[in-house]
């Protein structure tokens, strides 16, 4: 089994070590990992901010890079996969490009979806003896319908105690451009999320999207909270030491 890594812009620019962890986890369960050269951004930031005609150029580069590859395309972000699966094809009117986009969309998976639904794997051999709570990222949850997959993976981690998060499925306030267009609203949503995280009693809050992670980790850092925010993949790669 071979997968093509889709790094995603936020993943690549802010969470390099999470991508390394993704490679480690996939290789540990016997998956061969390739990284298509030349990948940039899928176009989602333009699309979501209304510049839909400007999303076409990066999206076209995405097609150019991934069309010649084969096998599953796996990303550490539900949001990017939701975009590729549900919006990328509609950007292309040309029937040839449209069908390439559809072909790529059909084999692009979010990492927890890939592990649980495609490989039917839950236990990836990780050990993480800590109290952990889980934040559900909106686009993985509602865009891709992934409600339990990440939690199933976390429950299979040795030593990990998964505690519930009140309002687990409520948006953390990131929302891409929303967070900078309306910073005050984004901030109150983030603060509400952090209050729930603190009330959960967990030492770590775990989530599957770099966007939420930037927001929640930053918010926890700002108030000097001892609670650490991690990407789910970092937990799945852990071998017992603290992260």
């Amino acid at each position: 089994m071979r997968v093509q890594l889709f790094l995603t812009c936020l993943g690549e620019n802010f969470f390099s070590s999470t991508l390394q962890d993704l490679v480690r986890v996939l290789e540990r369960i016997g998956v061969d990992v390739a990284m298509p050269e030349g990948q940039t951004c899928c176009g989602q930031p333009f699309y979501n901010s209304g510049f839909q005609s400007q999303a076409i150029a990066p999206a076209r580069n995405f097609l150019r890079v991934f069309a010649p590859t084969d096998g599953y395309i796996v990303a550490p972000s539900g949001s990017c996969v939701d975009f590729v699966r549900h919006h990328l094809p509609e950007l292309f009117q040309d029937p040839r490009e449209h069908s390439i986009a559809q072909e790529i969309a059909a084999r692009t998976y979010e990492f927890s979806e890939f592990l649980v639904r495609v490989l039917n794997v839950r236990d990836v051999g990780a050990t993480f003896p800590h109290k952990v709570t889980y934040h559900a990222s909106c686009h993985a949850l509602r865009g891709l319908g992934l409600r339990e997959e990440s939690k199933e993976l976390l429950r299979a981690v040795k030593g990990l105690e998964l505690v519930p998060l009140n309002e687990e499925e409520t948006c953390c306030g990131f929302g891409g451009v929303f967070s900078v267009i309306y910073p005050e609203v984004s901030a109150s949503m983030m603060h509400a999320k952090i209050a729930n995280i603190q009330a959960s009693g967990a030492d770590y809050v775990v989530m599957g999207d770099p966007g939420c992670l930037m927001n929640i980790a930053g918010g926890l850092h700002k108030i000097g909270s001892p609670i650490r925010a991690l990407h789910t993949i970092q937990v799945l790669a852990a071998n017992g030491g603290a992260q």
Partner: protein
Amino acid sequence: MMRIDFRANVQRVPPNMPPSVRKATTRFLGTRANVVNIFGDERWQQLRQAGHDVRLHTINHLDYYLTRLEENVASAGGIVHWARDAEQARQIVLAIAREHNVKRAVKVKSMATEEIGLNHALIDAGIQTLETDLGEYIVQLAGEGPSHIIVPAVHLTKEGIADLFTQKLGVNAPPDPLELCAIARTKLREEFMSADLGISGANFLVAETGTLVIVTNEGNGRMCTTLPPLHIAVVGIDKVVPDFESVNVLLKLLPRSATGQKISTYTSFITGPRRSTEEGGPQEFHLVLLDNGRTRVLRDPVARETLLCIRCGVCLNVCPVYNHVGGHAYGAVYSGPIGAILAPQLLGVKIAGDLPFASSLCGACADYCPVKIPIPKILLRLRHRVVEGDHVQDAITSAPMRAGARAGSFALSQSFLYALGSQIVKIFQAPFQRAGWLTHLPPPANRWTMTRPLPAFNANFRAWFRKRTPAGRARVQKRKLGIGLLFAGIAALGAWWLARRKK
């Protein structure tokens, strides 16, 4: 109307308001969950689909159903008026009121009459006009508009309402909901008996019989539409449904989604004025069918699904943005997710262009909407209208912003520029970096760092990945050499330019 400035409005939200909004929305969502669970998810999803289908069918054949409605209202003895816009609707109502020498009007809660600002017009014309829904009565006393589609006074606390009653009604009102309700009830009774006009909206208009369907919990709907001798209903043309089978589906969805009730306390079906065999009811019934931008909404094949809305308000209850800012921040009669897609279409993007961006696109609204309006999809459609323009309206973005987007799009579509940019920001971020975080960035990036720090840029995965194979390692060396040469070239050019300037 002035351009709605959502950010400025948000900054004016009183700090004690979001908690009282959340208290109410949480309660509604709890009761809703109970009744939906009783239904069972599979059946609930089927019902939502049926609701979606019948609403979409009607909206796609609006001309047909409106014509049938007009015929059937007329044959039941009602008088139908068509209003192109708010001004025409106000004039129609005023003309009827003048003709009947109306002095006092009582109103059932109606978003359509809020939309056309009917109360102001009536009061300016010397007609005493009173809201009779408790929440509307309270916001009318406060001189405000509703902040929620079904709970107009949700932004107020019981203490605030007690103060308001004490001030405006000259009574000693304690902060006790039951007592406040009793005070309002006594005041309102007198008005119902003496009013010579009852004004309502409608939840549905049944085309096959010309029937008005009104859903309330306080009974004021029946009082207003039966006691006064004259009844005028102002209803959006989108409220028409084909028949009672459709009403049957929609009445299962509406109260459950709105308040978590299986059925609301009162559901009234009004067909025409009092018949000769009947003892009660108004002698005259007028129906004002309001367009006010709705046919413009129909022009967009995607965004037209906005008109499926049955005004249950559940998208407001479940929206994290609405729960943190309340309804007034939206600056329009319709707030929350439905307001964010309806207002820019009714008022145009020049006025309400901020609203499609007042969402984190979390999608909770679409999961809860009883008629499955794809709200996030329509938000994206309208964002596109705002920044790039479409066949319905021109864009309102500035030329520099569009140029910026074009430049960004170009840079992010060229792998070399993208990789170079990733490495360059790593160098330029150095002065702002504190232990892996960028805590204070200059504008416009301060819009992020004012709330929380940004993780430092650390793109090094590709190099790490490539170095895992000998071929990759060679490639990394080659790249490093290339980038080194590029920087050396830039430095040489710079030195040459400086040297030339000195001469």
